[in-house]
């Protein structure tokens, strides 16, 4: 009964377009992200760190594991732009390479977490009822466990390493994604097009993958980015505590940990990895924020 709708949404009219390709959709979102200062900074930081992780071994002036007893805790100089650490290793080479392992692990874990958490969450949002109620109490129980402490527990049992970290990180973060996915799915599940599909006789799989997920992908994408940043922090904390990356692999968390005894005499060994780590995390957060806004603007147009 709203034939005389009152809200003229300018965006709805201003962007006419017909059947776009997926690529064009991505380009529109990217352009929107860059057009926001927050998004441009975020995207720059993320791309910068990703690129650096790829090319680090080609531009690193020294071998990251090369120890030199003559050059312990040297201040920054032309030979060592960021100085050297307590074992005489080049801090610059180690810092630019130091993000590699954590980025790979967390990126993979974030994708897995967003996928499984998203699918489970959306299914729960659709199914509702007792199953939903039961599963959500289970989720509550898991969320009540302090994340980092539990990670520590598991890692100390399994002895750490990539094969233990990826499943653990993606499992626990997936549980947070379930919450988000389910909440959003409940909003979509009451729409008439879902009712229409049910009444037509489509199965749950069709409804979840064909009708619901396309409408929730923006929320899940943003959640993926948020999870990624959270995992970066968690992984670095683990490394700091000695359960993440194993020496002599260069890793930011580990480097900060190693440098802490000498922080007063040689602050450069700890400050540089800290700066790199925090710029990446800030970058991811800013990027996620702008991504959310860009997708919302593009929501009516259909991105992918």
């Amino acid at each position, binding site marked *: *009964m*709203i*034939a*005389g*709708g*009152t*809200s*003229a*949404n*300018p*965006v*709805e*009219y*201003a*962007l*006419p*377009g*017909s*059947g776009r390709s997926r690529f064009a959709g991505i380009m529109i979102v990217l352009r929107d992200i860059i057009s926001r200062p927050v998004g441009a900074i975020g995207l720059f930081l993320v791309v910068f760190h990703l690129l650096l992780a790829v090319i680090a071994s080609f531009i690193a002036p020294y071998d990251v594991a090369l120890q030199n007893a003559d050059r312990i805790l040297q201040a920054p100089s032309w030979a060592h732009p960021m100085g050297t650490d307590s074992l005489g290793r080049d801090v610059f080479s180690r810092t630019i390479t130091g993000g590699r392992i954590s980025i790979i692990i967390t990126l993979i874990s974030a994708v897995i977490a967003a996928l499984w958490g998203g699918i489970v969450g959306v299914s729960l949002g659709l199914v509702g009822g007792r199953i939903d109620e039961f599963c959500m109490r289970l989720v509550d129980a898991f969320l009540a466990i302090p994340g980092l402490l539990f990670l520590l527990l598991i890692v100390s049992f399994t002895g750490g390493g990539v094969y233990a970290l990826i499943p653990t990180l993606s499992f626990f973060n997936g549980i947070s994604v379930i919450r988000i996915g389910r909440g959003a799915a409940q909003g979509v599940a009451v*729409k*008439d*097009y879902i*009712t*229409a*599909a*049910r*009444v*037509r*006789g*489509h199965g749950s799989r069709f409804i979840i993958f*064909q*009708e619901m997920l*396309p*409408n929730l992908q923006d929320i899940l994408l943003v959640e993926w980015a948020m999870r990624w940043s959270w995992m970066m922090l968690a992984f670095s904390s683990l490394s700091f505590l000695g359960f993440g990356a194993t020496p002599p692999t260069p890793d930011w968390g580990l480097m900060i940990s190693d440098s802490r005894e000498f922080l007063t005499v040689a602050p450069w060994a700890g400050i540089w990895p800290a700066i790199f780590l925090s710029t990446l995390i800030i970058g991811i957060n800013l990027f996620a924020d702008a991504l959310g806004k860009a997708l919302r603007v593009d*929501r*009516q*147009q*259909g991105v992918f």
Partner: protein
Amino acid sequence: MERLIHLDDLSVGIEAGVAAPTPILRGITLDVQPNEILGLVGESGSGKSTVALSMMGYLAPGLELFGGEAIFDNVSMFDLDRKGLEALRGGEICLVPQNAGHSLTPTMTIGRQIEESLALHTDLPPADRKKTVTDLLSQVRLPSPEQIRDRHPHELSGGQQQRCAIAMALAGRPRVLLLDEPTTGLDVTTQVHILELLKDLCRASGVAMVFVSHDLGAVARISDRVAVLYAGELMELGTSSEILKNPSHPYTRGLLTSIPKMDGARIPEALPGYPPRLSATRSACAFAPRCAHRKEICLNESPPLHRPANASMVRCHFDSGNFPHSSYQGAPRPPAADNQMQKLLELQDLAISYDRPGLLSRLTGQEDKQRVLTVNNLSFVLNKGETIAVVGESGSGKSTILRAIVGLIPPCNGSMRIEGEEALDCITEARSLQCKKDIQMIFQNPDSSLNPRKTIAEILSAPLQLYFDMERTEAIDKASELLESVRLTRDYLGRTPDQLSGGEKQRVGIARAFAAQPILALCDEVTSALDVSVQAAVLELLSKLQKENGVAYLFVSHDLATVRAIADRVLVLYQGRICEIGPVDAVYKPAFHPYTEALMEAVLEPDPDAQSHVEISDIVETAPPDSGCPFQLRCQRKVGKICNEVAPPAQSVSGHTIFCHIDRDRLFQLQDE
């Protein structure tokens, strides 16, 4: 001539970053005089709300003033600073928004909200405010204003909320009230009461009103003058009898003929086409593409607003008094098909409840004792190729019946059979694919019934692939055939729903239902979310598809005029109980069930001389009474105790059945007066 508000060549639009600036209002010149009610009529997107809001110097975010002025009482509203605007808004010029439920603060009592307005706009001492609030609430005819004052908005019905919003507007002692579709979401009987209230307020207190609506019936009932807007331009302006009885502009005429009428069982003539999309420039008559009297000049030149002799102001190249009045009254409804008497759907003693019995009552075997039956004792037969309309106000259980038939909510009693023999399973999932295919549903709101992330091709091929195992390419071929059958072209295949207008979306929704080749289509208020000019086209389409496919319709609607146009038989429902059922011609003549009578009186036809005399109250019942007649609380012809205690018997009156305690001859007598 004294004028309170003067819009002078007002243009408003989107100053878009990427595209050229796009006007939404183009050169609107309009006056509001003291003491008058000005009706602003237009379809969605015509800019009528933007006009009303700009009268108080407000533009929605994203809009900018392109030119012109809005003058209220010699003050140019767009030149005022924030302070100046705040002093006027809510005080001398006041807005009553469309949905009062959304505009009242949920955490404050009605009394406190109105007091706030009094504190801002009057110099009343705080001690006197409480009494003034009570006065205001009784002024808008709320029963027991002292109690309403202490309630929160969610404790009130939609009609009561709207009254409170009006009371709050009156608190600032306004000189102009801007009413933005104030009755649109309300039930028909409530709507009539609110319109009466507004009219009396205008007469009594002399406050001028601007009444924005898409509903010509409501506008006819209340306005002194009417302005017709189309695509951001003022098309016609005149007194309401000029506009509604002797319209000059082809658009106004088209609108009037496209409204279903109570006096004829025919589908009204539809206005062809759709309103234009927004564009930066306009060098032709905005209505030309849809106009039957279009000449070459219409496509090349924008017509000026002029006043032909003895007529209203009109924006047309021609002195349209000369246009022949369309004698076409709409297509008569096709006679019912031959297989009329073959039973298709049979409902027997259906009872539906949304309450689920608690564990305790299930254990003690008292499942049915406490639950509220939303629908009860519902029995009727739908024949092949027939249309039965289910009519009633909101909360009458109309949609619940449809949901039970498609298996979304299992009935707690009774049986459903389709095609005479097959008993229908209660739950969709338990039904055979064939059975699901046979029953299709068309939804009220096309915005939410089409998945925004899918193309029309995907939307239409989903049922084809499901029911007929079609290959993708085959399904797309079939989909373009379906689009043609609902009068769209195959260009639509690649578009997404947001690129379609409301009417086009609803056509796609209809095409999707017919992709299954159903034998029964359930239509849930399919026209009520659409613009007036498009509604008739959808009705016509449904009628055409019925002729071609022999499908039966169960057509749910709150609008008696629409029902008259399309139904073979009518079922009047109150609180989920049948009040009256019978062939459409019989139901629309006395004797009526008292509830049908009230509904008939509440229908607003675009006739400025019509007088409403709705006698029943507009209270909203939330649950049916435990015993007796479901309509006992509001019935204007209640006989006595028997109505409260005994369920009314079925009486057969000239072909239709009425459930009432009053004798049929007596009913006839009463209603003939």
